């Protein structure tokens, strides 16, 4: 059956990518108002990218093991 880690991984890669790119090109003013000057879109986008990549990695590893056995 479908390994749920694939859709989770892909979704977080897409969401993280969107946030990070938006963060990289957005102006600083809104971060001064909301998040103490930190470009939180860029930072959290990267966190989501790492999480998504980790989920995909786990899914691929499980699939390879399944094929071997």
């Amino acid at each position, binding site marked *: 059956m479908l390994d749920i880690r694939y859709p989770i991984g892909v*979704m977080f890669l897409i969401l993280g990518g*969107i946030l990070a790119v938006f963060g990289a090109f957005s102006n600083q003013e809104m971060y001064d108002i909301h998040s*103490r000057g930190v470009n939180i879109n860029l930072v959290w986008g990267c966190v989501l990218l790492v999480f998504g990549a980790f989920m995909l990695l786990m899914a691929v590893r499980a699939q390879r093991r399944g094929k071997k056995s």
Partner: protein
Amino acid sequence: METVRLGQIDYVILIVYTLFVLGIGFALKRYMKTSTDFFLSGRSIPAWITALAFVSANLGANEVIGMGACGAKYGMMTCHFYWLGAVAAMVFVGVFMMPFYYGSKARSVPEYLKLRFDEKTRGFNAISFAVMTIFQSGISMYALAKLLQLLLNWPFGMSVWVSAAVVLIYIFLGGLTSAIYNEVLQFFLIVLGFLPLVVFGLWEIGGWQGLVEKLNVVTKTSEYLVVKGAPPYPDGAWTSVWANMGSSASNPMHIEWFGMVAGLGFVLAFGYWCTDFLVVQRAMAAESMSAARRTPVLATIPKILIPAIVIIPGMIALVARPHEGVFPAASMPKVGEVVQTKIAPPCLGLIPPKVEEKMEFVDGQQQIVRRIKGEKGRNGEPDKVELDYDLVMPMMLVQYFPTGLLGLGLTALMASFMSGMAGNVTAFNTVWTYDIYQSYIMPNRSDNHYLWMGRMATVFGIVVSIAAAYVAAHFNNIMDFIQLVFGFVNAPLFATFLLGMFWKRATGHGAFFGLLAGTGASALHTALTGPTGHWLVANPVHTYGSDMAQNFWMAIFSWTTCFVVTIAISLATPRKKSDAELRGLVYSLTPRFADDDHLGWYAKPEALAVIMLLITIALNIYFW
């Protein structure tokens, strides 16, 4: 405060999420061949997935918003819902009860009652549970739509229909598997969507230490919190879990330790986690007996951490300074004062006063007028401004999240709503199809027929939920009343299960009349005591310090009544089921289950259970 305007990127994030949850439903459609696939996921899901779904199905929008509100209202004492209530009950259901749920041929909790006791006990439980789940998903849909209307100015009907349609599609296609898979995805989204709130909130107010110091000042001096004529709260009233529970007057929840431990920790928590099919169904979908037993035990790991993302933000909201450019300057609202916007500016930390909408005559014309709501004091007259605690989490999101991350936070809120609603709907369609339709309406049909009925029940259940949401929008008080009535039904149930599973002498008549008596005791308790209820008497026989204390004590009376009556009637009536019939249903008649002997000690549910209990005790002591 004006309504919040979302950027395009926020909508993009919401749309990406929606496409994925729907996509999972479509991807799973081809696996739904039998009714067992649809209602029980073919009993094929690994433990880590069912464990996350077990937690997530309970983590609905009501829970997220409600726990944030309680964090602000009661502080760390709210953690009792997790560290006292949930963990012990989850460990108990995994280690002791799951062998009977998973091991018997029962496909649902009501069906277990039929096998163990008799038809009438099952019927009573199935019907009350089916009605309860439908209304609960309706109530949470109403709460979400009302919040989105207030915050974003989204039309109420649109929120209701769109969110219901998404849940309908993915359950209709992929059944319980689709609900469970999406609950795992939603779980990660909820955690990653709310986590930055805690990080920024704590950073800004100087960490945990800063939070403790600021709360000590605010909770002693704020006119919104201090009870008039009562001594101020002691130090740490908001930041300690146990220290102020010696008497009900010295803590914000107004409850003493016995009511908390017996009412919440024993009756209500065990009643919910051990007998509510909404959560038990997730464990019953696991791939093996061992995985089913590990499901609730593994679920305690995320469960003990959830207070960090829902309760702490509520506490931060009480002392955070509103950011310039996000909120208008702080004001000193007065009861009855007219405000222009639907949400008034925050007056205590980030928490705004409650606004009441009423039709009034202005210049000879009927108009909607918004006024600051007052809270009733001891003499029954409004003596101070009432705070709108339900807006705690949304205000935190609006304060700390810029466009982009705000989209993620709101998507997390939608995700929590959908996971809670899907939990209700999948539990409903199973109980309806197996315990009501197959048992009383159309027995002996083909499996395909019941699979079809399950899909129809999904549609029907969601349509009735939508209707309930509209009813709630028009008669808010009726929903409060219904919630109260559910308490009557739920409180005694754990006594029935405890006796059923561990005492072979308990009979069907005993169980049924015990449940009726317990439900009656709940109703009678509410009818005689205050602050809420006391319909039968003008002056309540006893008035508790808070609704919560009253609720916990109702549970204690109800459970005890059910326990005593079940024993008495069981002893007075003959046993109808032989030892052979009760094999696999009662503890003393079931051979010790040995499926997981090949596992190392560390992978056994018992070992993990002990470790998690020790960690939970440590948390209780650390935050004493």
